[in-house]
């Protein structure tokens, strides 16, 4: 069991998690997603008993990214409906970069796998242990992500 205080855990992994989240939701939303994940997982009974709070937090960040993914899709629909009365959303810098844009077509889970594979340089078992999925699932997600990315980047 990880006996460190919540503040110590936050200090130890906060920067790392925000960097990870930047690959999932873009830099603008990354700090929000990370802190929300921390708050949510901190309320879980599992948190106090967790042996690996870092991994638990990683999974919570992916979950929050999915929530944002869904709410963003809904928001876009609503914004289109009221486009004449509501100012357009700020320019989404997440989509300015070509690779970032390509990442945007992936599911949040696939983005998480891509980030942990390429940024954290983890092998499939390592990615799987952080995300709570099997290495086989990681490989499947990574293979799909690669195919999509190659297509998006014109290397398919």
């Amino acid at each position: 069991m990880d006996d460190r205080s919540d503040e110590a855990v936050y200090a130890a992994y906060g920067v790392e998690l925000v960097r990870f989240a930047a690959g999932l939701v873009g830099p603008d939303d990354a700090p929000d997603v990370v802190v929300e994940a921390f708050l949510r997982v901190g309320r879980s009974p599992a948190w106090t008993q967790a042996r690996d709070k870092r991994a638990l937090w990683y999974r919570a960040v992916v979950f929050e990214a999915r929530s944002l993914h869904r709410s963003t899709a809904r928001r876009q629909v609503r914004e289109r409906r009221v486009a004449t009365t509501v100012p357009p959303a700020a320019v989404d810098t997440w989509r300015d970069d070509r690779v970032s844009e390509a990442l945007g077509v992936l599911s949040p889970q696939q983005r998480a796998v891509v980030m942990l594979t390429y940024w954290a340089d983890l092998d499939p078992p390592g990615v799987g242990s952080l995300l709570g999925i099997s290495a086989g699932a990681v490989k499947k997600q990574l293979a799909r992500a690669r195919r999509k990315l190659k297509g998006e980047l014109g290397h398919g």
Partner: protein
Amino acid sequence: MDDVEFDERMRNAVTGIADGAPPPHPFPAPTGGADQGDGLGRRRRVMDHRSRLALVAAAVAVLLTGGWLAASAGLFDQSVDIAATDEGAGMSSAVAPNPGRSQEWPTVTPGADLIPLGALEPRRVIFGPGDEAATAAADYLADRLPDLAATPDGLVIEEVETVDGHAVFSWSYDIADVSTTGWVYLLEAEGSWWVVAAVSDGVDARRVAYDLRRVTGLITATGDNALVVDLVDIDTGEPFQPATGDTVDPGPSGRQLGTAGRSERLDGEETIDIDTPVAREQFAIRIQAVGGTALTITEFTVSAETAETVLILFVEPAAINAVVAALAADDRTGDYQRHDAAETRVDEQRLVSAAPELAEIWDAGSELESVSLALATTDPIAAVIEELRLLEGVVAVVPAPSPSPPDDEEAATPARGECPTTQPPEEAFVPPAPWPATPASDNMAWYGTDELWTVIEIDWPIENKSVWWSAQFPGGPDEPNPPLTVIFERLDADLPPIVYDAPGTNAFTDADQWFMINGREPTESGCWQATATYRGTTLSYIFEVP
């Protein structure tokens, strides 16, 4: 660009993205009350949006995601953010087990994979797109029910609800004393509308299950018309199973119906007992009543991910806290977080009571890989609930493989690394011309003889179709359906083999030349032996899925 260069570029790109991230917010207090600082602002907005979702949207969400989205995204319009209330600040107060029932509830087995189900992605699409939901629904029905759609005043299509990127349309007809009705579910994505499922009144597919090896279960229908079922390739929209019996003559669409089964009359119902080997990540099941032409359409997708992870429970009101407590104790953040509905302290009087179903599910509790929870209301549209009862079965209620094998089986399981995987031969096999001397990927090697060969993966296995070559295989139109049989057997567990009976299909790429496909390599972890037979030649290899 080869894989190595691609990987290197991706590594640089994502590192740049990560390095560009801002610093984290200051440390928040995880157990705080109403005001959690800046980090909670967006959460409140999300919850507010959720609270406005209509029931139909939630119903479709259940369909799309196997339940957890609905549980977390507004099935109940009283949703509140518990983090903003003192009562909801702690999980313990929200999920205190019901003292009268809690001891009866098994603990959900921890440690199983948690595979996310995705969300608003058109991955369960069976038809589309259309510029408008109505257009997509009409086009879909015209394709699936062509004669009815072509009959003047025959097929009536009406919008039931369109909310936040989801839409439900009803269809019905009453022609010559024959009438029925059904619903089409659509999703808006990428600026277009896509059909993701269809159901028909009286068609019950709740007992269909997919365990990554076979599609099994009973499909029944009231009425006098025969029922046919096809297993359909998502990409092509065409059945991928060879016809196993009598099929229905092609209608105007030219589509052969009933390739995976046709009903017989049992106990006053049209019944199909389907039992078909399938090893695909995703496919669609298409069920239609036919009487001279297609009369109904029930269609939905099944995916390997769904089969591994999803179960929807209808929970009686008194049990909700105990269920959530069991899930929360499971030490799986994802599962815990799927149950926002309980956190929001829903009005229990609005829950559907379904105790018998629940008891049955709990009886199998120890064999469930994971549990997802969906709650349904009876108000305001009870009809949707009935649809959900169909959809829960066809989309989501799928008994998963047991995560805990019996002791003797466990003992027989070789430890990791002990699977005697087939290695590339020291002297590389070189196929005859015109096939290339080496496979297309550096991660692969040819294995076999001129009579029958395949590729084996050197590093780690990737998701692959089961592909085979032979110098005897002429390919092309000369042999579009080669007599190739492929069997996958687990060497480390006593499980039934996955059998892909002949024929296979032909395929061609510039890099691979003509080759044969039959089935797909399994993705379930374990030590596997693949054995193929073609024109009297048999070839086997062993591989491990980690």
